[in-house]
């Protein structure tokens, strides 16, 4: 550690900011980074801004064009990883437009600020938020927890769609909460696997109507952007990296209950093993008073014959 200096934050605010970003057992939700490449089309811009509006609570939008980001190439990921580190975003949506791949979206995740996996998807038949007309009272509030519905056997059978399903879940679900306010659920995302490479995606507001029981009758009204996602390429994570990333703290604490057995007659029986008592090697507590007296008495005994033995101190305790 010769060439390294230890830096600690000088204010509580800085300390709190660093602790927020530190690796934890129970993590914060993924933040989304929305950015674009060299060329974008008007539809792509609309798509990116609408995704940003849907996820405003936990999303960061970069508006400049980034020429050197090419997620699927080996050298083109450094910028992405740097941005992920700086903004603490572990999920990114990278939009680009080219003749070969029009209206291209690359959705990717990072693990420890390195690219974990990627899915490249083309957007077709995009209908923006503004083009839908509906009763304004139904408009979903920002940041409410959505219902997510996946329909189609393709999501199970086709590998790309399976991967896309996972990505969409991560993208759309928002914060993982324990307590949910039942009257506050007001929107749902519906993703349908229309064919082996096409997913129809739409966003609907939820209308809860009175029914006979506690469970209300749900009604979906199309509200938000709707688009067709065509899977182009994807990259799965390495097996080793995947194992490391999927590890959770719970997995480690799966200990068997040892030395416990169930007896039919006696019930639950436990075995207790008492370790060897090292009588000589234990560190004795420093009860000096007792030791002093023993020493004193021993001295008196020994030096009873000797001349001029010290007078013992008279302790009043």
């Amino acid at each position, binding site marked *: *550690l010769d*060439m*390294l*200096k*230890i*830096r*600690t*934050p000088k204010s509580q605010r800085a300390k709190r900011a660093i*602790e927020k970003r*530190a*690796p*934890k*057992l129970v*993590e914060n939700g993924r933040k989304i980074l929305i950015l674009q490449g060299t060329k974008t089309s008007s539809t792509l811009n609309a798509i990116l801004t609408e995704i940003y509006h849907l996820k405003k609570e936990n999303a960061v939008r970069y508006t400049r064009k980034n020429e050197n980001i090419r997620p699927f190439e080996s050298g083109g990921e450094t910028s992405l990883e740097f941005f992920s580190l700086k903004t603490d975003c*572990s999920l990114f949506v990278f939009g680009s437009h080219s003749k070969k791949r029009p209206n291209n979206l690359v959705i990717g*995740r*990072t*693990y420890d600020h390195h690219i974990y996996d990627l899915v490249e998807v083309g957007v077709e*038949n995009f209908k923006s938020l503004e083009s839908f007309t509906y009763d304004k009272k139904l408009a979903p509030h920002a940041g409410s927890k959505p*219902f*997510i*519905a*996946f*329909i*189609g*056997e393709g*999501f199970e059978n086709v590998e790309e769609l399976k991967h896309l*399903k996972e990505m969409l*879940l*991560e993208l759309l*679900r928002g914060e*993982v909460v324990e307590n*949910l*306010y*039942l*009257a506050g*659920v007001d929107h*749902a995302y*519906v993703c*349908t*696997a*229309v064919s082996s490479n096409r997913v*129809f995606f*739409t966003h609907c507001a*939820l209308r809860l109507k009175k029914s*006979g*029981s*506690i*469970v*209300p009758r*749900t009604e*979906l009204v199309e509200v938000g952007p*709707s688009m067709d996602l065509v899977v182009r390429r994807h990259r799965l*994570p390495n097996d080793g990296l*995947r194992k490391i*990333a*999927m*590890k*959770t703290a719970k997995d480690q604490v799966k200990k068997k209950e040892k030395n416990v057995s169930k007896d039919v007659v006696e019930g639950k029986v436990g075995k207790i093993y008492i370790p060897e008592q090292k009588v000589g090697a234990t*560190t004795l507590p420093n009860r000096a008073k007792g030791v002093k007296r023993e020493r004193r008495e021993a001295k008196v005994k020994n030096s009873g014959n000797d001349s001029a033995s010290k007078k013992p101190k008279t302790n009043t305790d």
Partner: protein
Amino acid sequence: MEVEQKGLEIDLGNLMAYDPHHHFPPYLPSREELAQQCLQKGTELVQAIAFDLFNLPSTEDRDGPIVTLPKPTTRLPREKRLPEPKPLTKWEAFAKAKGIRKRKKDKLVFDEQTGTWKRRYGYDHVNDDNDVPIIDAKMTDEPGEDPFAKRKADKKKRVEKQEKNRLQNLKNAAKMGSLPSHVQLAATALPITGTQSAPTKLSKNELQDIAGKAGTSTASGGKFDKKLPGEKPEKHEGKYRKFLPVVEKRGADSQERKQTERAVTIINAKKEKKQSKRSERSSSTPSKLKPNKKSHKSFKKGSSKKSSKQGKSK
């Protein structure tokens, strides 16, 4: 009540439902029909989730019913690595071995000296070294020692030791890879290959002198360089030389005479010193046993004369 379709996978923690059994007809219907179908199916799924959701035990909050969601069942990868278990610090390991337990300490402690309640640490704390007016002398004290200074020195030593231990603990943690999250290591200098020492940063004073040093490489030696406001004049390292005036009167007052006189007196003084030293040394041996130096000199003179003669004759 809606009957749940068998085969629906519902993840309540994520409010997600998945219907793996739905086939889409091979012919592609028109877009509106497709949208209609999807919405219909979607409504069914959402109804199924809502059924499970609203049947969860709910608690009444002031705004309305609140429900505790179960944990999500779909396993997703983490975004950052798992925190490593921290190694015990030196004190923690010692306390564990000895069986020492932490005790809760009060913020205010009664100070015997001033008779008031003071903080245990920080501004205006208990047992402050500055407050002690008199220190009784003990039999073990040395006579010339200042007990107040000794106290300060002891405290300084204790603080240094503590700092050293703290850094050692951090080093250990860094070795295990589990540095506390608010501590960061920053490289102060790049290692140089070949040499042992790291380049030292220039001090403020050195930086101020550098502009002047760079100016000496100009034609005028940096004397007429424009200076920025606030810049100090250049340092002149070395002696200032004094030159004699070009036109001067001859006589006892002339500076040239004074200069040469001064030089001569210095040389004479040096010679005397040498001779006195020699005489001190030579006083131990009698003059007869001294090596004859004169003969060497005459030899030299003769040889030189001979050589000159030789050189001259052709």
